[in-house]
């Protein structure tokens, strides 16, 4: 599967509230950690791809998110994890 940055933007838009650009912080865009996981599952290269919790916490902005999704889509293992509070 090959995903483009436009694919990422479109997917992020389905979870976001209002407009955003790469500098927008995730809470400002209304994207919570659960949305991150849903995006990860959508773009992950393989079912075996692993999500590393520590990495996920570092994703602060939409730009960080796109970089991470890109990495996840192109390699079979990396990522970040948790939906908090569930």
């Amino acid at each position: 599967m090959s995903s483009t940055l436009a694919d990422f933007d479109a997917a992020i838009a389905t979870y976001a509230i209002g407009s955003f650009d790469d500098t927008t912080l995730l809470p400002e865009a209304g994207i919570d950690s659960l949305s991150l996981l849903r995006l990860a599952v959508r773009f992950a290269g393989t079912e075996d791809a692993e999500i590393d919790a520590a990495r996920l916490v570092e994703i602060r902005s939409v730009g960080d998110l796109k970089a991470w999704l890109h990495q996840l889509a192109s390699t079979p293992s990396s990522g970040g994890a948790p939906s908090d509070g569930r």
Partner: protein
Amino acid sequence: MPHPSQPPALPITESQKGLLVIDSWLPRREIYNQIIQLDVAPALPFEHIRNALAEVVAVQPALRQIFQLRPELGARLADPPSPADLPIERVVVETAEYERATGALVERLARQPIELTVGPAYRFGHLSTRDGTGARILLCLHHVVCDGLSLGPLVRDLEAALAGDRPRTAPEALRTEREQALLRELTAQQRASAPDRVLPLVKTWAERLRAVPPLVLSPRPHRPTEPGYRGERIAWTLDDRETTAFEETCRALAVSPFVLLTGVFGAVVARHGGVPTVLIGSPFSARRTVGAFDLCGYFVNTLPITVDVTWQSTVAEFLGTSVRAAVDFCRSSAHVTFNQVVAEVQPDRPGSRNPLFGCMLAMQDTHEQATGGAVTAVREPANGWAKFDLWLGATRVDGRTWLLELEYDTALLAPTVAEGILHSLRTALNRAAEDRTRPLADLFVDFPPPAAPPPAHVRPAEHRTLQEWVMATARRQPGAVALAEEGKQLTYQELVAAAGRVAAGLRRSGVTAGDVVAVATDGLCDTIVAVLGILRCGAAFVSLDPALPEERLATMARIARCRIVVGKGIDVPGVRTVDPTEFVADGPQTIPTDAEAHPAYVMFTSGSTGVPKGVLMGQRPLINLATWQLDALRQDENTRFFQYAPMSFDVCYQEILPTLASGGTVVSREPADRRDFPALVRRVADTRVTHLFLPAAGLRPFALSALGLRASLPHLRYVCVSGQQLVLDDDIRRFFTGLTDCALVNLYGPTETNAVTVHHLTGDARRWPSHVPIGRPMPGVVAYVVDQTGHLAPPGVPGELYLGGDCLAEGYLNDPERTAAAFLPDRFAGTADARMYRTGDLVARDEDGVLVYLGRRDTQVKVRGHRVELGEIETVANGVADVREAVAVARPAGSDVELVLFVHPEDGRRVDHAAVRAQLAAALPGYMMPAWIFDLSYVPTSGTGKTDRAALAARADGLVAQATADRPDRVPTYADETQRELAALWADILEVDTIPADVSLLDCGAHSLNAFVAFAEIQHRFGVTVDVATFFRNPTVAALADLVRARGATART
């Protein structure tokens, strides 16, 4: 394709192990039954639904886990069930019955235990209306096979199965695929949480967790140590305005709703628990593989979020920096398992409750139901069980607003206390959104104190001053006996005349209104005559006890600027002593016209610097107190009030002046010695006393003496006590049971206010509580409970007691600095000149608005992180045979403190220390067990009759040092083979050489997890199940052996 008959062994996650351990310790197996309620298209036939559910079970392997507890924790997968074998209850009802029947079905499903070692871990319900307008599926799953994120996969699989659009062979292939995905996920989790990878992190984390103070919501004496598990829920749905403000706050601070709720909930819990730091537990998703997001299963680690509440920091700093960092830390540590944290922290709260935290926050927003499928709505109704002391669930409603639900354990929290928490939560959330620059303390507002009971029964004050009141009585009944000493009595007429002579003499000596005159007289009559004479001059009296050191007397006289002492035996430079018998000339029977403006007495209290403080008390509060007392204690001309208190103790006022105002008789204690209780009992009986006021510490010796003497006290109507926490035991109850129509009245009040709150105990004494509340404020008095946010506390919240209204002393005599520090402007009164006194006492209002004393703010005893009320230990010890009185003290031991219990035996008896230990162990948690027990030949008391704990603590130091030096190194000996075998079993688990039979296993390293292993082993070897909570109350090999033998005996009968 057929599956092998022997299902493969499956590793289980550490979180599953932790939950299995907790589950196995609960008193009921059904507490972790989770209910999911799915509304489905009504047209679907039952058979179709049953087949679809069977398919869900087939393709979700976690549901088919069957667990084993020995030889090690693990699971295997059962084969998929055939639809006919599926445990499903079908209910068809009329439309009008639909909701009620749903509740009933939820209850039936939730109340039946799920046997995890037998399986299955699920059961279902199907409910439909007869007219085909509604249908519901209820899934009842044990929590150990599902979590919040499992809702999505379950609903998707169910919808796919109901739609029937999968190829016929597809479920088989999917089943294999999912089983492999489950294995991959479990393996990935085990790899991520491998000890060598997480141990350094866990160690530093554990260190921080150990520093967090214990949280006790709604602290009170005799709060149950074990939860009751019955849960009640109360809820609040944010309205549109609140929702908008909530979301705007999240955006502005760049935090998630989870961070915002964690922070606000944390601040609320900190306020209500009276602590600066709290742990809020929350489940963090531990799913690692992408494939696991299609799986149902228990893939969470429930981790403690440390919420540090600095009340001065702003909302923005708190949420945007501190709480966000704490949440991020847990998120990035989601691979660390709860078990690993517990094992490292080794918290001293084992038992069936969560060992790390009592409060939980769960975001219930994991599943947003897509439209178009067969499932039209998803809910998770409460199962009626509380898994935590307090749980907050935040559920997204219609993708728009939030439903906040508080679930609380009804044994631990009263409904009004829970309502107060919800009130705080709502206030704090709204105020956080309103102004992000406000300090955290101002997230809260004053909780309105309970309305005072109507003062209808209180008569208005009859006179402006105490002296006028007494003179009016004398005019009304001149021949009545006012004072009764042995062999001597004074009528009102004689009393007033004698007081007039003293007043005249004092005036001649230069005493004027507003002066302070000392009293150092012998005998009740001379003393009261002197006091009334001093008051007649418009002066205040102060008692100087000739037994006090000269230097102390000089200091007191200097502070009081006292130039004259009435009496004898005082030799202080600059102070003239006058013998009252010298006053023979009558004077005018008048009092100064402005007498009510002049204070009545000075009482000295000890100051922390060693210099005593002279409390100057005005007339107005005393008139208010007397007015209350005459009504409340039904005082009249038949009252005979025993005069027990020294004149240097403010209780003497209540014994004497209201009695003289009512026309009753004040009865002298003498010749009985103040500490000779049998003599006191005889004196009270012989003089037909109706009212008796004792220091709280004196009540038990008095009661025991009365019981021992079989004294008949038919006249006694009121026994009042004050001075320290009143603790009742069965002896005291027995004493009151034997009295007809006698109430016990517990009063509270510092010297700076005299008595201000009161609690009456009447009726069946056998039902009286052991830890008696200090009650409600008297009319005219206002009691403020100020919590750590500086606001008036809701019910159940500990706070410092401040007193306002008609009770305050003028201040400390000639000491404006200390007066200003203790008597503050009353910011709650709403008037500019009102004042309030800061008591330094910690109290809480109970659910009925009654004040309960919790301890001194500055001397609260804390043992291994637990708050300990020493009186609780004493009450239990007092119940042991041959104990006359027990006193517990705390002494420093290493970095902690240890408890020492002193026991004063009955005359001629010896106290069996082992019996004391056994009784304490049966009634109290382990941390309340005294490290040492010593005999005491008498209980030392301070001058005012209070138990002198400081003296006992000093004595304990010496006794412990001696005992430690005397104790030889011990080689463990065991009473029998059971003890020996259990000691060996534990030594093996704890990796130590030997364990003595009577040493706490907790001190040897036992905790909830390794205890689980031990108990499984005990079950295996001895064939008995030991009750965990019972074990942890006295966690020694000896006690465990007793339990094993007792269970074994029960099992055989």
